[in-house]
């Protein structure tokens, strides 16, 4: 039985909007040109592929449902009260294979010593075997290293095989399209003579596929990133956190966008008292320290939730509301920057000949703003969407650390870091939770930064002219 959270709905709305824009832009050369420029940059294309992988994970994690319970006597299907997502199903055992407590990455023994009763009745203090990590081995202390290396080698070659075949298929399609021979296409790719830098795409794809096969192969019988305090697989947590990061990064901008565009255009176009009011509004909001405004709002939401507990049917729903609320608050604190940019640009544009001409023809104000001004400030909107994304993903971690981020029950990198920050003081150090969260976040933010640089270079007319 499907469940649709509010953020799920908004995510898919966003996906449809992007698809709609792509279809629309295909027919309009001036919209296509800057994007084509982006596809000519090798770094941007590599980053785009990595972002795409993240997005796929996020989308699979946004399809929620109540799983059906198998053991039921009546004909009516019975659904579990638990909510899982398609990603949970795809990850399968990763979710359910929980240990008792900490275990290091790829370990077969637990992290700390425990009293274990032996078969002859005596008790010894030793590292107990893990329930799932390395459970297929008879004597992990001697076998596990060779087993891991064997698995890595096998999966490495498997990954190479898959990536070579994927590359081959893409090359075939390319050669069909360009009416070239297969070999000729390959040479052109290697020498980078095709307009799109395919060599960068192929390298990224091969890397991703190989790493994926290695991780999949190892995760069958090990915890690749170890387990956390309650024994949950860290890899699973990191993958589940992808959705939270993406939601914060995209929905925040989506929510504030209509408002920022409207106020920015109005302030620049009408000037006079409307401009004064809007300027007053954003100076006031801007002068409240962002973190404090977020803190105040989240505190108030907590008060609201604790007083209206009956309204929320599940923990997930509560977490989702808080996530949405966080997006809205972040949107409120971050629309001012875009609004100011749009206002400044509109002030310049309204004096331009075609706007004056439209006014002389008696075209309505609304129409001028929508038809003449909006398309000409779209590059600013586009640049600020992609530039904001990485900052928002990083902000989530900090806010969750402060305790005013997403719900503590929700998977997020910030929560992972927050719960792991005391583990660094342990001896020996429990580093894997932190490391996994930082690595996943770093890869996402780095690709977003590289991609947004390319988008900015392609869209900013000042840079394009040079």
């Amino acid at each position, binding site marked *: 039985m499907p469940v649709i959270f509010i953020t799920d709905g908004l995510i898919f709305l966003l996906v449809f909007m992007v698809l709609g824009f792509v279809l629309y832009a295909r027919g309009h050369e001036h919209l296509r040109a800057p994007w084509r420029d982006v596809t000519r940059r090798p770094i941007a294309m590599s980053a785009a592929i990595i972002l795409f992988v993240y997005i796929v994970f996020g989308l699979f994690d946004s399809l929620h449902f109540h799983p059906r319970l198998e053991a039921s006597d009546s004909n009516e299907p019975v659904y579990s009260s638990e909510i899982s997502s398609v990603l949970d199903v795809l990850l399968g055992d990763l979710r359910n294979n929980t240990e008792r407590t900490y275990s290091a990455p790829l370990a077969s023994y637990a992290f700390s010593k425990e009293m274990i009763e032996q078969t002859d009745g005596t008790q010894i203090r030793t590292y107990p075997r893990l329930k799932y990590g390395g459970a297929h081995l008879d004597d992990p202390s001697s076998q596990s290293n060779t087993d891991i290396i064997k698995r890595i080698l096998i999966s490495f070659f498997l990954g190479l095989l898959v990536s070579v075949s994927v590359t081959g298929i893409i090359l075939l399609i390319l050669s069909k399209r360009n009416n070239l021979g297969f070999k000729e296409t390959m040479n052109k790719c290697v020498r980078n003579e095709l307009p799109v830098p395919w060599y960068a795409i192929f390298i990224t794809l091969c890397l991703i596929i190989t790493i994926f096969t290695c991780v999949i192969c190892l995760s069958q019988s090990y915890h690749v990133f170890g387990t956390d305090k309650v024994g949950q697989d860290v890899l699973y947590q990191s993958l589940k956190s992808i959705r939270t990061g993406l939601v914060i990064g995209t929905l925040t901008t989506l929510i504030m966008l209509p408002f920022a565009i409207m106020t920015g255009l109005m302030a620049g176009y009408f000037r006079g008292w409307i401009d004064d009011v809007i300027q007053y509004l954003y100076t006031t909001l801007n002068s409240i320290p962002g973190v404090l405004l977020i*803190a105040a709002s989240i505190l108030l939401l907590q008060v609201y939730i604790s007083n209206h507990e009956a309204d929320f049917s599940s923990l997930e729903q509560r977490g989702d509301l808080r996530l949405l609320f966080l997006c809205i608050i972040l949107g409120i604190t971050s629309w001012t920057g875009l609004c100011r940019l749009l206002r400044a640009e509109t002030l310049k544009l309204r004096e331009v000949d075609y706007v004056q001409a439209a006014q002389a023809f008696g075209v309505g104000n609304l129409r001028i703003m929508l038809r003449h001004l909006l398309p000409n400030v779209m590059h600013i909107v586009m640049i600020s969407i992609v530039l904001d994304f990485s900052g928002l993903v990083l902000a989530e*971690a900090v806010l969750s*650390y402060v305790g005013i981020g997403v719900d503590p029950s929700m998977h997020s990198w910030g929560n992972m*870091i927050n719960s792991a920050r005391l583990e660094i003081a342990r001896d020996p150090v429990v580093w894997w939770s932190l490391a996994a969260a930082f690595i996943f976040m770093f890869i996402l933010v780095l690709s977003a930064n590289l991609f947004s640089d390319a988008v900015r270079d392609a869209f900013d007319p000042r840079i394009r002219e040079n």
Partner: protein
Amino acid sequence: MINYILRRIAYAIPILIGVNIITFVLFFVVNTPDDMARMQLGDKHISEAAITKWKEERGYDKPILWNNNAQAVGKVTETIFFQNSVKLFLFDFGRSDSGRDISYDIGQRMLPSLSITVPGLVFGLLAYITFGLILAFFRGSYIDVSGVILCVAMMSVSGLFYIIGGQFLIGKLLHLVPISGYDTGFNSIKFIVLPVFIGLIGGIGASTRWYRTIFLEEMGKDYVRTAKAKGLSETSVLYKHVLMNGLIPILTGVVVILPSLFMGSLIVESFFAIPGLGSYTIDAISSQDFAIVRSMVFLGSVLYIIGLILTDISYTLVDPRVRLN
């Protein structure tokens, strides 16, 4: 000039009123004092008497905007709005929900905050300007390209990583300085070094890249070409012309955050257990002390607005072309 400053200050007043109204609405209208009391006292089935007592102790039992039971002026002053919001304008922050004098606490905690933020700003500016200038000087070379890539990579690392990693590496493995804590007088230096250094590292990526762009923009201008055509050496053009002119946007950009240095840094202070205003705010947030959060919102806004005014003034001082109106 004085006229201009006075006008700017007058313009700041409606903004402060706006801030005040927003915080008032957030804290007292959207959520009533009853909700706050229930939240603070914890129990859902708390008695009505306990809530009344809690509100009475903190002065939240008054009507919100208009008090009909009071005499004359008291109709306006004996209200939550006047007692808790209007008084902020006089920097009378009142007492926190746990009963401490907020103004006293703020006064006590300003110095530790400044002892982190001021060295952080000074050393940060020095380092970022140097790096930015180096990258701009070697523009287009491998040094520049690898420097920019390094900057992007460093920008992409979460600030929390620098803090946790730095504490672990320098404090725990190398035992160079204590991991966290604070002391008075000169003893505090060993506690300050690490947070300042980590703050500096954390800002390198974004700032260096930004300053490099400023210097590059300056290098493309006509007067630089003229200076070079006159036969000036590359280094003297760099120091006398590019650096001096590039400093204008950099320093005027710094002016806006100068007053906010009092507020300290939320994350750094709480990680390093520095008793400044940043950790004060964090503690207030986690113990859900609304009175402190409200005061800090107001204080932060005042400091930001002062920063804006200072920025405008600094523009007119630095660049005579900017007219005062």
